[in-house]
Every structure is written in structure tokens, then in C-alpha cells.
């Protein structure tokens, strides 16, 4: 049983047991990054503000997420009287599911030989990589929208409405910024995009697109300074106001998973994925570590921005998205297209 996966455009055949094995490994390792990331975020935020951050639970405070998950798991599963029960329970699941699904196409490296089998260090090399990402990003709205609406609370509803407006506004610019890269790389496969960066990483020729993508990535993941969704001064906690216990953890988990995925995508699409500069060409098994190191730097940038910038006002958010980022992204796409046509004809 060694048929090609219909969506995949891989030039080799992976046995079914290898596909199962590597999906287990990718998700086991990938999801273990999250708690570490949460501790490191709080430690980084602390250091950026002249304090330590969590350092009490376990060695260097790394037991903190463990203590917190115990705390959250033992909390009451509260639900408002006006809430719509099954939707209220379903919404965090949608959020987390879409975030995990996007993890499948993240390339951690090139093909390597494992047990005599040629294996790609990624879940799936789809021919529609970025489209797959945006598709699941669009489904992720439902997690937030349904969660806010099904809570039966006005604050939650307002928060989810804001989230929807914000995500839709910035998804356009994000997509357009990526179009420049796709045109330059001439492929929609994320692995192909990495291979196309062998000469020069795309953040140099696509500098404008890179900045737009990063800014839009902040907005897409509801991170500061675009965390209007949970603007606590106005909206209590946005769409997750009525959530508590493990359901709220599911939302937070989805948010951090989204940050992780956006960071990996940024390092894959713009920062050369597993490629190293100055002609360094390590064996293929080093690739995942290179990707994770680059991702770590991008994630630190997320934390750094969080410690630096105050939250935008809602009208500022909208005018930044529609009046600055969207025209810039369109212009970037046009200029890239013109240059490509002139250069290749």
C-alpha cells in the first residue's frame, strides 16, 4: 500500500507507516514547543521590563505551565444561562483544530533517509501550501465568532465581531504580500519556496512584502499591538470572556499555536527555511533545528513587540489595514510582477 497522497506533489513514494510515524513525531514535538514558548514569553517579557518572570516552579520556572494546567483543569466549567450549549463547547475545538491542521504542511527540512526510506521532514508537501494555510485561517474565524456569539454575552459578541473585522481586513494584505513571493518562487509548495531561496532569502528582494506579512501576521494572531479582540479595558476579555478552565486554555493554546505557525511560515517563506547563509551546507538532519532556531528568533520578535508597543485604537487598526497595508501590498505585487515580466522576457 504505497499510493501517492492525492494532494501532494512529491516525486517519491512514502509508505503509509512512515506517514503515520512522522505525523505523530511532528505533532508530538510541535505541541511540546508550546508550553516552553509560553514560559519563555513570560520570561522574555520580564527581562524586557527589568524583572525575572516565572522562576519558582521547577528548574528555572519551566514547570509553570504544568502548574497552570492543573489549576485550569480543576476549575469549574461555567456557562452563562443565555449561552448556546453545544456551540459554546464546540467553538474552542474549532479554534484549536484549525491551528493544528495548519501545522501539517510546515516544512522542517528536506528529504532524509529514515530506515532506508526517503522521507520529507514535513507532514505533507501540498501543491497549494499558502492556500491551505489561508483556508484554515479562514475557518479559524468560526472558532472565534461562534465562541463569542454562543456565549450569549454582549462583551463576547462585540469582541468576536471585532475579531472578524480585524482578521478579514488583514488577511487580504497578508495574502497579497505572499503573492509576491509565490510569483518570485514560481511555486505554491512551501518546500519549493524554500528551494527557490537558495540564492537569496526572500526578505531581501521582497522587503516590503516581508514587513507587510509580519505586521499582518501580528494582526492575524491577535497579538499586541493588534490584540483589540481582547482589549481588556473595553471588552473584558473579548470572545473568551465567558470561558473558563480548559476551554479558555484551548483558546490560549490556539492563539500560541497560531503564533508558532505564523513564525514558522515567516521563517520558511522569507527567511530561507532550513537554508543557511554563506554557503554552509550541513547534512539534512540538521534542517529541523535550523528552522526551529529561525522560528525562535521570529517568536522572540513577537514577544519583543508585545513588550514595546501599546495597543492600537480601533480606527487606527482599520486605517492601517485598509489605507496603508493593502495599497502597499497591491503595489508590491504589481511591481514584483512587472520586474518578473521584464527580467524573464
Amino acid at each position, binding site marked *: 500500500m504505497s499510493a501517492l497522497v492525492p494532494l501532494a506533489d512529491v516525486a517519491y513514494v512514502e509508505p503509509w507507516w512512515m506517514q503515520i510515524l512522522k505525523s505523530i513525531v511532528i505533532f508530538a514535538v510541535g505541541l511540546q514547543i508550546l508550553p516552553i514558548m509560553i514560559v519563555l514569553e513570560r520570561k522574555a517579557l*520580564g*527581562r*524586557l*521590563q*527589568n*524583572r*525575572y518572570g516565572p522562576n519558582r516552579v521547577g528548574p528555572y520556572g519551566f514547570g509553570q505551565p504544568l502548574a497552570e494546567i492543573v489549576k485550569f483543569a480543576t476549575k469549574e466549567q461555567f456557562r452563562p444561562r443565555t449561552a448556546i450549549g453545544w456551540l459554546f463547547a464546540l467553538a474552542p475545538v474549532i479554534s484549536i483544530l484549525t491551528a493544528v491542521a495548519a501545522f501539517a504542511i510546515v516544512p522542517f527540512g528536506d528529504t532524509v533517509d529514515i530506515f532506508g526510506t526517503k522521507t520529507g521532514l514535513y507532514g505533507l508537501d501540498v501543491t497549494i501550501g499558502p492556500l491551505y494555510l489561508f483556508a484554515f485561517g479562514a475557518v479559524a474565524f468560526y472558532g472565534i465568532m461562534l465562541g463569542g456569539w454562543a456565549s450569549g454575552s454582549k462583551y463576547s459578541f462585540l469582541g468576536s465581531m471585532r475579531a472578524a473585522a480585524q482578521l478579514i481586513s488583514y488577511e487580504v494584505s497578508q495574502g497579497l504580500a505572499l503573492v509576491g513571493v509565490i510569483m518570485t518562487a514560481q511555486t505554491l509548495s512551501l518546500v519549493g519556496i524554500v528551494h527557490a531561496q537558495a540564492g537569496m532569502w526572500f526578505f531581501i528582494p521582497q522587503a516590503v512584502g516581508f514587513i507587510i506579512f509580519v505586521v499582518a501576521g501580528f494582526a492575524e494572531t491577535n497579538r499586541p499591538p493588534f490584540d483589540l479582540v481582547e482589549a481588556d479595558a473595553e471588552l473584558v476579555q473579548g470572545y473568551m470572556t465567558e470561558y473558563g478552565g480548559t476551554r479558555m486554555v484551548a483558546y490560549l493554546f490556539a492563539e500560541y499555536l497560531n503564533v508558532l505557525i505564523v513564525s514558522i511560515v515567516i521563517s520558511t517563506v522569507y527567511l530561507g527555511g532550513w537554508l543557511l547563509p554563506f554557503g554552509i551546507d550541513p547534512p539534512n538532519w540538521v534542517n529541523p533545528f535550523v528552522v526551529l532556531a529561525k522560528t525562535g528568533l521570529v517568536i522572540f520578535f513577537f514577544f*519583543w*513587540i508585545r*513588550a*514595546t*508597543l501599546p495597543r492600537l485604537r480601533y480606527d487606527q487598526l482599520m*486605517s492601517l489595514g485598509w489605507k*496603508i497595508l493593502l495599497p502597499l501590498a497591491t503595489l508590491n505585487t504589481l511591481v514584483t510582477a512587472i520586474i518578473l515580466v521584464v527580467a524573464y522576457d
Partner: protein
Amino acid sequence: MPWSPGDDVLAVQRAPQPGGAGGAYRAFGETLRGLKTTFARIPEGTVTIQYPEEKTPVYPRYRGRHRLHRFEDTGLEKCVGCSLCAAACPADCIRVVAAENTPEHRVSAGERYAAVYEINLSRCIFCGYCEVACPFDAITMGNDYEMSDYHRPDLIFTKEMLLAEPFERTPLRAEGE
């Protein structure tokens, strides 16, 4: 004729108008400046005092928990049970019961001694009037500030507890610190 406020009124300094290419450029530059500002906090290190392990040093005249004193040479208590501290106490938290010294049972240097000396620290406001009122410097305000407890009765300190050395000394601030 337009109204003139005069030369001594300064014009309000306003930031340049937001928006446009200049606004975007300024916003970008200010973001970089902000990033520099926050990153510069990392090499500065932390200012946190890790409390249970590390304690805030106090000044020598810090008014912490009371201490009762003995004469260093004879070992006799300085307190003579005059109750002046109790009289001076605005919070009424000191209770003194005096008893006569006898040649066989000599506790203090004076005629009488404090058979019972209790301070209710849950009431004490740490004003230091008892220290001022004491004619023999028998009671002073110490430097200890770790006095929390689980039960209110445990906050009533007896004479033995006030005479004893604290389990852990509070660090004193060094000269010029």
C-alpha cells in the same frame, strides 16, 4: 483686529500630523526606537528582590517588631514593670503586670519587674511611643518585619519571645546605600 495673547504666551508644540508617507515613516522610526528602548532593559538586569531568599535591607532606625533588653553584664532584665509604655501606647496593645523582686528571685535591676509583658502585634501601629516612653531603654523597636501568622493569638508576643533573639536577623542597610 485679531486678539493677540502677547509675547509671553508660548505656542503649543504639536506633533506633526499623522498619516501619509511621512506619518508612516515616523511611525516606523518610532517603533524601532521603542524596540531599542525595551531591548536595552535586558542588559540592565533585573531589579527584583527574590524575597524569601533575599530580604530587603532596612535602615537602622526602621521601626520593626519590638525587642526587650537585658543588661549585658548581669543578664538582668532592664524592664522594671512601670507600665509607662502601656500608658503611652495609642493602640493600647501592651499589657504589663508588675511583681516585686525578692533577693532569692531577682529578675530585673529595679525594685519590681514585669511578671507579664505582652504586646498584641495585631493591634500595634509601630509608632515607637513605647520606646520613647521607656525610662530604662528596656523596650526598643527592632528591625524585624516578618511577623505574619496564621492565627491571631499567635500575634500576641510574650516577654520570653520579645527577649529572645529573632530566628533570622533582618539585613541592615549598609552605609550610604
